[in-house]
C-alpha cells in the first residue's frame, strides 16, 4: 500500500520547505521513524522521519526545490501492511495533516524574544495544539493509559521515541513529552540539526556577496551589545576551579532527577547557587551604575544566557536566592525549555540583576562576555576538563577543572571586590559535593 508523504510544516509560520537532501533513494528501504529526507526552511533544518516502514517508491521533488507545505514529496510502499492498511491510510493521512498543524516553531525561531528588550515578541501560542491526535496505526499496541494520556495532552504517539520494551511508548514517555510541550514532543523525532560550523542556515542561507537584512531580534541584540560595551568599561578576570567533587555529586543525582522531575540536572543550578552565595558575601556584584550613584539591588535575579541558533535570550530566575539547588534546576530547566520553544514571556526576560553564562557546553575554555546592560557583572562557566593537577602535598592528581570568567563593570566595582568575589565563588564551588542535599 503506497503512502504519500507531504512536505511537513516545520514551524507555525512556515508555509514552504526546501528539500535540502534526500537521505534515501528510490528502491531503498526505510524504517518507521528513520530520517529519509532533510528539509530546510528559513527557520530550521530538520531531518524528517518516515511515518511508515517500507520502500521508497518515488521521490516527487528534486533536491533544492522549494514546495508549499502539504505538497506530496515522496511515496513510500508500506511493507507488512495487510488489508487493514487500506483502511488506515486515510486515517494516517489525516493524522499527518493534524501533526503538521500541531508542530510548533523549532529552535531558531528568528522572531523569538530577545534579552530584556521590551520590544520582544509576545509568545504566540499554538491554539491548534489541541488538534494533535494519534493515528489509528500508531495506537496499535499502545496501552490504555498511553492512549488516554496522549488524548488528554494532545500528543501524537507516533512522534514519540519509546523508552519501553522494544521501543514501546510508555505512559511516562507521554507524560514527559507533555511536560516539554507539543513542540518538544515533535522534536524528539524531527530533530533540529545543530548549526553547521560554517554558519549556514542560522541566518537563512548566506550567499557570499549579498547582505542579509536585519530582523528585529538581531537589531536589538546589536544595539544592546554596543550600548553595554560603550557605557560600561569592561574588565576581565578568570579563576580555575576544581569541580571534581561537585561533578561526582551531580553525576550521582542526575538520573534520579530527570526521572523524578523531567528536567536534566546540569552543573548550572549548582553554579547559580554558588554565585548567589558569593553575591551574598559581595553584594556590590549585584548592583548597577546610575547617575545618582551605585544602586545595590535588593533582589537577586539571575539571568541565564541561552544561545539559540539565530539569537541570544537571557531569561531570568527571579528571587533566585530563595531557591535550593533543586528549585534552581527546575526553574532553569523550565526557562531553557521555553526558550528553545520560543515561548518566553516578556516578564521572564526582564529584571535580571546578574547574569550567568554556561559557555562550556561546546568546549569553550575561556571567554570575555559582554555585560548585560544595567548589571555589574556576568560570569561564565567554561568547559569541565580533566587535567593533571599538583595537589597541596605536591602529588599529581587527575582532577576535573573548570574555568570561571568574570566581566565586570569597572564603574561599579574594582579589582579588589571582583577578585574577592571570584575567590569566594571558587571556594564555594570546591566545597560542593561529593555528597549533599539538592
Amino acid at each position, binding site marked *: 500500500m503506497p503512502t504519500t508523504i507531504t512536505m511537513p510544516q516545520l514551524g507555525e509560520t512556515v508555509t514552504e520547505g526546501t528539500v535540502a537532501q534526500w537521505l534515501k533513494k528510490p528502491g531503498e528501504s526505510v524504517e518507521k521513524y528513520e530520517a529519509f529526507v532533510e528539509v530546510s526552511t528559513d527557520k530550521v533544518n530538520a531531518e524528517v522521519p518516515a511515518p511508515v516502514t517500507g520502500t521508497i517508491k518515488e521521490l516527487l521533488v528534486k533536491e533544492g526545490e522549494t514546495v508549499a507545505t502539504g505538497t506530496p514529496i515522496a511515496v513510500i510502499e508500506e511493507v507488512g501492511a495487510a488489508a487493514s492498511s487500506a483502511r488506515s491510510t486515510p486515517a494516517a493521512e489525516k493524522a499527518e495533516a493534524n501533526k503538521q498543524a500541531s508542530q510548533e516553531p523549532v529552535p531558531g525561531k528568528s522572531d523569538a524574544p530577545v534579552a530584556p528588550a521590551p520590544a520582544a515578541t509576545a509568545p504566540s501560542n499554538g491554539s491548534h495544539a489541541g488538534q494533535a491526535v494519534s493515528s489509528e496505526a500508531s495506537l496499535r499496541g499502545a*496501552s*490504555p493509559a498511553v492512549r*488516554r494520556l496522549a488524548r488528554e495532552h494532545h500528543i501524537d504517539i507516533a512522534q514519540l521515541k519509546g523508552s*519501553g520494551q522494544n521501543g514501546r511508548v*510508555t505512559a511516562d514517555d507521554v507524560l514527559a513529552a507533555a511536560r516539554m510541550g507539543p513542540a518538544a514532543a515533535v522534536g524528539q523525532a524531527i530533530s533540529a540539526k545543530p548549526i553547521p560550523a560554517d554558519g549556514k542556515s542560522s541566518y537563512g542561507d548566506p550567499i557570499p556577496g549579498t547582505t542579509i537584512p536585519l530582523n528585529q531580534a538581531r537589531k536589538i541584540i546589536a544595539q544592546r551589545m554596543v550600548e553595554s560595551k560603550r557605557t560600561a568599561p569592561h574588565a576581565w578576570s578568570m579563576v580555575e576551579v576544581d569541580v571534581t567533587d561537585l561533578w561526582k555529586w551531580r553525576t550521582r543525582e542526575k538520573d*534520579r532527577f530527570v526521572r523524578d522531575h523531567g528536567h536534566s540536572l546540569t552543573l548550572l543550578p549548582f553554579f547559580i547557587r554558588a554565585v548567589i552565595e558569593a553575591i551574598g558575601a559581595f553584594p556590590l556584584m549585584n548592583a548597577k551604575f546610575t547617575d545618582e550613584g551605585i544602586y545595590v539591588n535588593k533582589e537577586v535575579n539571575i539571568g541565564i544566557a541561552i544561545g539559540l541558533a539565530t539569537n541570544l535570550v537571557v531569561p531570568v530566575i527571579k528571587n533566585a536566592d530563595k531557591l535550593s539547588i533543586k528549585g534552581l534546576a527546575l526553574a532553569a530547566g523550565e526557562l531553557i525549555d521555553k526558550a528553545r520553544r520560543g515561548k518566553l514571556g516578556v516578564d521572564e526576560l526582564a529584571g535580571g540583576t546578574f547574569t550567568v553564562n554556561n559557555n562550556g557546553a561546546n568546549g569553550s575554555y575561556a571567554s570575555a562576555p559582554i555585560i548585560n546592560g544595567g548589571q555589574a557583572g556576568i560570569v561564565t562557566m567554561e568547559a569541565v576538563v580533566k587535567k593533571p593537577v599538583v595537589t597541596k602535598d605536591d602529588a599529581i592528581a587527575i582532577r576535573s577543572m573548570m574555568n570561571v570568567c568574570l566581566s565586570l563593570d569597572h564603574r561599579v566595582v574594582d579589582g579588589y571586590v571582583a577578585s574577592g568575589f571570584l575567590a569566594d565563588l571558587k571556594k564555594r564551588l570546591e566545597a560542593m559535593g561529593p555528597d549533599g542535599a539538592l
Partner: protein
Amino acid sequence: MAVASPSKVMTNVEAVRSTLYDALKRDDKAVILGEDVGNRGNVFLITKGFIEEFGPERIIDTPIAEASIVGIAVGMAMEGLRPIAEIQFADFIYPAFNQIVGEAAKTRYRSNGEYTCPMVIRTPYGGGVRGALSHSVSVEALFYHVPGLKIVVPSTPRDIKGLLNAAIEDPDPVLFLEHKRTYRLIKDDVPDEYFTIPIGKANITQEGTQLTVVSYGLYAHQSLEAARKLQDENLSVEVIDLRSVRPMDRNAILDSVRKTHKLLIIHEDNKFGGVGAEISAMVAEEALFELDAPIRRLCCPDVPAMGYALPLEEEYMISTDRMAEEMRAMVRF
C-alpha cells in the same frame, strides 16, 4: 507519634498468643475452642497455660470434628458469647464449610438482623514449612466469594494484634488466617496497649512510582524485600500488603495504580479464580485507562497440592528472586 508508647518485640506466633490472652482477660464472654487448644496448649503452643488460668469452660478441647467446632461456635455467638474457634490447620477446614458459609455468614441476613454471629475462626495456613499435602494450603479463595464473611490475612505481629482485636470486636464472623511460615520468621515491635486496625484497610509498606505490587501473608514480606532490592537498581516499586482480602481495600489499590500505571499481584494461593483474579477484574473495571501494561499475577501453580520433597516445595513456592525478576520486567515493559 510524639511519645513512644511502651512496646515489646515479638514474633507473629507470640502476637497471636498475647492478643488471645488479653482478650480472655478483658472479656469473660471470650472463649476458645478447638483441637488440642486445652491440655496440649495448641500445636504451636499458642494457648499453652490458658486452660490452667481460664479453666476448661472457656478453653474447650474438642473432638476432631471441624463442623462441630464451628457449629458450636455459631450457637455460642448467637447467644452472646465471643467464641474464638480454632481450626488446627486450614487444610482441615473443609468439613466446616457448611457451618461457615451456610450458617455463620448468613446468620444476620437470615434472622433479619435479630441475631448476629460475632465469632472468629482462626487457622494457620500456607506453605514453605515442609507441610506437604495436608499442612500447606491457602484457603482464602474458597471463602472470599462469600458475602457476609470477613477474611483477614495479617503478616506482621502488630497487624496480627490490631486485626485480631478488631475481629474479636466485630459483630459478624471473621475468618482469621495466620501464615504459619511467618509464625517464628517475622519479629517486630508491638505496642502493649489495646488497639485495633480496621478490617478492610491495606497497608502501603513501600511507596513507589513505577509499579504497584499487591500481596499479603508471607509474600507481603518477600515482595517488599524484592522491591527494596530493586531500589538499588533505581527502580521504584510500591508495595501494598492487603491485610484483609474481604472486604478489600479497593481505594488503596486503585490510587496506587493511578500513580504507577502498572499492577502485579503476588499470592501463594493458586492463580485460577484466586484473590488476584478479583483484583485484576476490579482494576480493569475501575481503572482500565490508567494501565500502561497488562496486569500480571504471580501465583503458585494450579496443582492439587504442594509436594513434600524440598525441590518440589521450592518449585511450588515463589522465591524473592522470582518476584524481583517479575517486577523488573514489568517496570521495564
